[in-house]
């Protein structure tokens, strides 16, 4: 008799789970249509487009106990308890969140964890099962092996068989969408449906976050697309996106990330598999992938010192990550850097456009976290780790943190994570998504500085005296826009205001990339406005450094240097009307302590020699492109 009741319990709980929570709606009962949009984007909205929860195969493996509901509550500013018991809360809430769990084996590890052990036949799965149940460390090891095997195309079939996993995936996906609906609050907080497409042939990171404009009524009609293992063309993802839009009338976009770990494959000069780049391929890529995540916990992909030897700030977020691809199965050779970094990709796009007529790499920029803790933390003093295995503790900064191997990468190589800033006409899914499609976005490495960037032909030096935002929209284009029909040199309004609770600003730079008549690629960085101009001068292209007020012992800094706001109108002094070019703004803060110093302060962490303890955090705007007449 006792046995029968136990048996019954298992069955009944499963039956009940299937019927749980299937409501649609929003938190305030409103829809996007109820929220009035402003005439132009008056306000910047902050969010994370790349957050993992316990539904991600690796996040669960790393031990995270928090699911989508906790992730949403946390992003909205509420206090939650992190996996290992620490209370976690954001200093300021976010305005939007995309939960992007891996489509590959969505929830599979959780299912394996929950499975009756006796029914597991695959020896690898059985071993993993035992390791996972043995201890948190066991889970961590399983996840390392799993990412390694996914990269080398040797995952157990049972974990990747789409038919076997479909039922489970459907359940997770539709339960997830119900939760997202419950926390979406048009006008106040936008909760997006999304997933991560995790293609990584031989460990080369070709990952994309896929983000929907729509709610449960449409997204429930599809399942997240899983490219499987091996080397399938990314165009299959675009096929999936086409099919979704056709079937539902909805909209969806994709955001590549961690190009720095792709071993040159994220931004190739050729089409897939070394075939020639075609206009059709370029058109599809540009329309499907309007944004790139330029900075996140696993390093910064803006620029690399090898490609930009004159850029003294290009080494930010490179240590460790520049050594190899995601799984470290293959080392990164110098000739791979060009396909790894955003600034170079923007130049390559111009060169491809010159040949095919279409620019495949015409994208804007955002930052995000890629946190696997369900906690979208981007601040140095509140870094909850890449995954639950390195939530705050005394050792994480100095432990090897490799996914596949144990060489070369250490905890301190992680950045605290970035955020996406979006100039939208309202805080709704539709308004934010539409702003992303027109690339009116910028990336930051965590601080919330306000950055405006307009290009035009008619701005004057005194434009800044009046209502220059209105003027920017009326007579120019915002970040992400295009300039045509040159009338003299292009002029740019750039204005950066510090994060009101953060560090002062060092300088604003405009990065220009162009392609010359011979097809050769060039770049130049112009320092256009900086703090303390009376004492800091240009010598050639170099500007006197801003100084450094970081006190290592107390993990603090002073705003006695730098400026709260920097703005100017700048005209390109080297403009050549016949050359295709792009311009984007880079804003640098004064030096501030990195998260590792807070670990020293709070946990008496011991740091390895060579650990970077301070940095200049920054923002990258989406570019403005100049097109000569054909």
């Amino acid at each position: 008799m006792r046995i029968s009741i136990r048996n019954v319990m298992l069955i009944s709980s499963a039956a009940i789970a299937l019927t749980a929570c299937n409501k649609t709606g929003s938190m305030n009962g409103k829809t996007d249509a109820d929220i009035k949009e402003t005439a132009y984007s008056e306000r910047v909205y902050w969010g994370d487009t790349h957050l993992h929860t316990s539904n991600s195969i690796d996040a669960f493996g790393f031990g995270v106990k928090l699911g989508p509901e906790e992730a949403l509550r946390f992003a909205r500013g509420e206090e939650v308890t992190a996996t290992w018991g620490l209370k976690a809360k954001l200093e300021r809430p976010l305005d939007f969140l995309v939960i992007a769990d891996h489509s590959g084996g969505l929830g599979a590890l959780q299912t394996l964890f929950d499975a009756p052990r006796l029914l597991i036949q695959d020896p690898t799965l059985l071993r993993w099962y035992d390791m996972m149940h043995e201890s948190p460390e066991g889970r961590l090891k399983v996840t390392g092996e799993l990412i390694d095997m996914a990269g080398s195309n040797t995952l157990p079939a049972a974990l990747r068989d789409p038919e076997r996993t479909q039922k489970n995936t459907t359940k997770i996906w539709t339960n997830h969408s119900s939760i997202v609906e419950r926390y979406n609050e048009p006008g106040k907080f936008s909760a997006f449906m999304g997933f991560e497409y995790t293609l990584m042939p031989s460990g080369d990171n070709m990952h994309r976050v896929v983000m929907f404009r729509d709610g449960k009524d449409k997204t429930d009609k599809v399942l997240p697309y899983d490219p499987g293992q091996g080397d399938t063309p990314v165009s299959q993802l675009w096929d999936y996106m086409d099919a979704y839009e056709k079937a539902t009338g909805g909209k969806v976009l994709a955001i590549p990330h961690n190009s720095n770990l792709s071993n040159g494959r994220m931004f190739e000069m050729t089409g897939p598999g070394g075939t020639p780049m075609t206009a059709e391929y370029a058109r599809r890529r540009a329309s499907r992938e309007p944004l790139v995540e330029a900075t996140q916990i696993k390093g910064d992909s803006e620029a690399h010192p090898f490609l930009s030897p004159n850029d003294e700030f290009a080494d930010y977020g490179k240590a460790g990550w520049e050594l190899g691809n995601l799984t470290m199965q293959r080392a990164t050779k110098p000739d791979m850097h060009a396909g790894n970094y955003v600034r170079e990709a923007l130049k390559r796009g111009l060169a491809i456009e010159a040949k095919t007529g279409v620019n495949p790499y015409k994208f804007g920029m955002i930052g995000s976290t890629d946190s696997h803790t369900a906690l979208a933390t981007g601040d140095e003093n509140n870094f909850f780790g890449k995954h639950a295995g390195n939530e705050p503790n005394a050792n994480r900064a100095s432990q090897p943190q490799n996914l596949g191997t144990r060489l070369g990468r250490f905890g301190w190589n992680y950045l605290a994570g970035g955020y996406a800033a979006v100039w939208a006409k309202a805080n709704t899914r539709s308004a934010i998504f539409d702003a992303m499609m027109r690339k009116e976005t910028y990336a930051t490495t965590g601080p919330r500085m306000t950055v405006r960037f307009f290009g035009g032909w008619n701005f004057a030096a005194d434009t800044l005296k009046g209502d220059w935002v209105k003027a920017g929209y009326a007579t120019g284009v915002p970040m992400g826009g295009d300039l045509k029909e040159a009338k003299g040199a292009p002029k740019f309004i750039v204005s950066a205001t510090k994060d009101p609770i953060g560090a002062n600003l060092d300088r604003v730079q405009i990065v220009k990339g162009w392609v010359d008549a011979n097809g050769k690629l060039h770049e130049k960085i112009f320092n256009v406005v900086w703090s303390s101009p009376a004492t800091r001068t240009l010598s050639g292209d170099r500007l006197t450094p801003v100084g450094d007020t970081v006190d290592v012992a107390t993990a603090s800094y002073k705003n006695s240097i730098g400026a709260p706001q920097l703005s100017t109108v700048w005209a390109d002094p080297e403009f050549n009307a016949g050359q295709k070019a792009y311009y984007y703004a880079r804003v640098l803060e004064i030096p501030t302590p990195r998260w590792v110093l807070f670990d020293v302060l709070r946990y008496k962490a011991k740091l390895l020699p060579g650990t970077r303890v301070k940095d200049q955090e920054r923002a990258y705007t989406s570019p403005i492109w100049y097109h000569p007449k054909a």
Partner: protein
Amino acid sequence: MIGRIVPLLREPLVHFLIAGALVFAMFGGTVDPADRSITVTESQIRGLAEQWEATWQRQPTPAEVDGLIRDYIKDEVYYREAIRLGLDTDDIVMRRRMRSKMEFLVAAQSENEAPSDATLQAWLDGHKSKYATSKAVSFDQVFVGEGDSARISAQLKTGMNPATLGAPLSVPAALEDSQVEDIDRQFGEGFANRIAQYPLGQWQGPVESGFGPHIVRVRKVSAGSVPPLSKIRQKVENDWREANRKSREGKAYQALLDGYTIRIAKP
């Protein structure tokens, strides 16, 4: 009598037993591990086929039904063998899974509850401060920056146009009925509450924001209020669900724990 049954129905432990009994009835009878005969009934086969159909949106072929039955028998054989081997008692994994399933059952039950307006109103009344909008402030501000705050303050008091004074800063020169969080979001932590104490209609300061000193004229301060339930129903329901789930988990455990005598040896 009714009054006695209704509270009982809210007990999580009762839910366990009712759900268990229902499924028990559906699947028809006891399984004795010592029994080495397995009978697959017609209704069980129908159940298997229906489950298949729900998943694949079509009826299984006869071969597929055979497969389902074979799989069911395999489950049963392994299950009984495992019980014979005592794997259910000495296996830490089994023990943890059982615990986790028990906890999950309570959570899933509470997820299905549809709270009444009265329940949510009571929750709202008990947590008013959590739902109250914060106070709203209308004000004008001039950013002093590196300038002379005493001089700017004096100029403002003589009635000079604020737009002609101070240092440039891309934050609004005036805000209307802005809530504390919204002001702080633009001016930095604590700014709204600092200026809300000023007498109305007078230029005051300097007061520090995240950018530096400002001279501020507060025009209006309105107290916050608690919105009616109809305006914040889903928000209240989300919070009630979360709290309800936790409390049910706690109560269910307590109800079970109460049935035990616990003795802990001193170290």
